[in-house]
């Protein structure tokens, strides 16, 4: 099975956002708002950090033993 890092990150963000929006907020609208904030914050933050990694030198590939 091929595993996509991005999809795993989205899956994780979905679970955590749903959990905290249910735990912390009561109204439907408030929950939706917090869910979107957390979800977009995690996915967007992850993508931003990943993009920043391009500025770091990657170096030669590690040889297999």
């Amino acid at each position, binding site marked *: 099975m091929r*595993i996509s890092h991005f999809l*795993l990150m989205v*899956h*994780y963000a979905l*679970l*955590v956002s*749903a*959990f905290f929006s*249910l*735990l912390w907020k*009561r109204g439907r609208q408030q929950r939706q708002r917090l869910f979107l904030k957390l979800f977009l914050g995690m996915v967007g933050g992850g993508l931003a950090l990943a993009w920043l990694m391009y500025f770091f030198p990657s170096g030669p590939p590690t040889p297999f033993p």
Partner: protein
Amino acid sequence: MSEPAAAPRAADPPAHNPVVAALLAWVVPGAGHLYLGRRGRALAFCLIVLVSLFTGFALQGNLYRVVAGQPLSFFATLGSMGVGLPYFVARWLLGYQGDIESASYEYGSAFILTAGLMNLLLVLDALDIARGRKS
């Protein structure tokens, strides 16, 4: 002269034992909220925690256990044990260990640990609701 009608009293909330609520919440994810009458939230929390846990298992993540000489493994084990009964079933009945050579090992470990920590937060939430500190 007739007596004035008594003002209607709001029904008293049913008394729930905080210790039972916390214990149930720890043993089975969502059971504490079910005991407190929060059926919808109980189901949602149970699904979220179990999906996170089984994703971790599917990714061959680490089900932490205490390793001598590695003090941080103690806290990671406590966090993983937070998921309650599924931890012990997976570890002792199913013999689950994870696969350190799997490419998804670290991801899986994060999912499993997150499931445990989320359930620990549910224990505290159930405790607060049972004590009347939270609606």
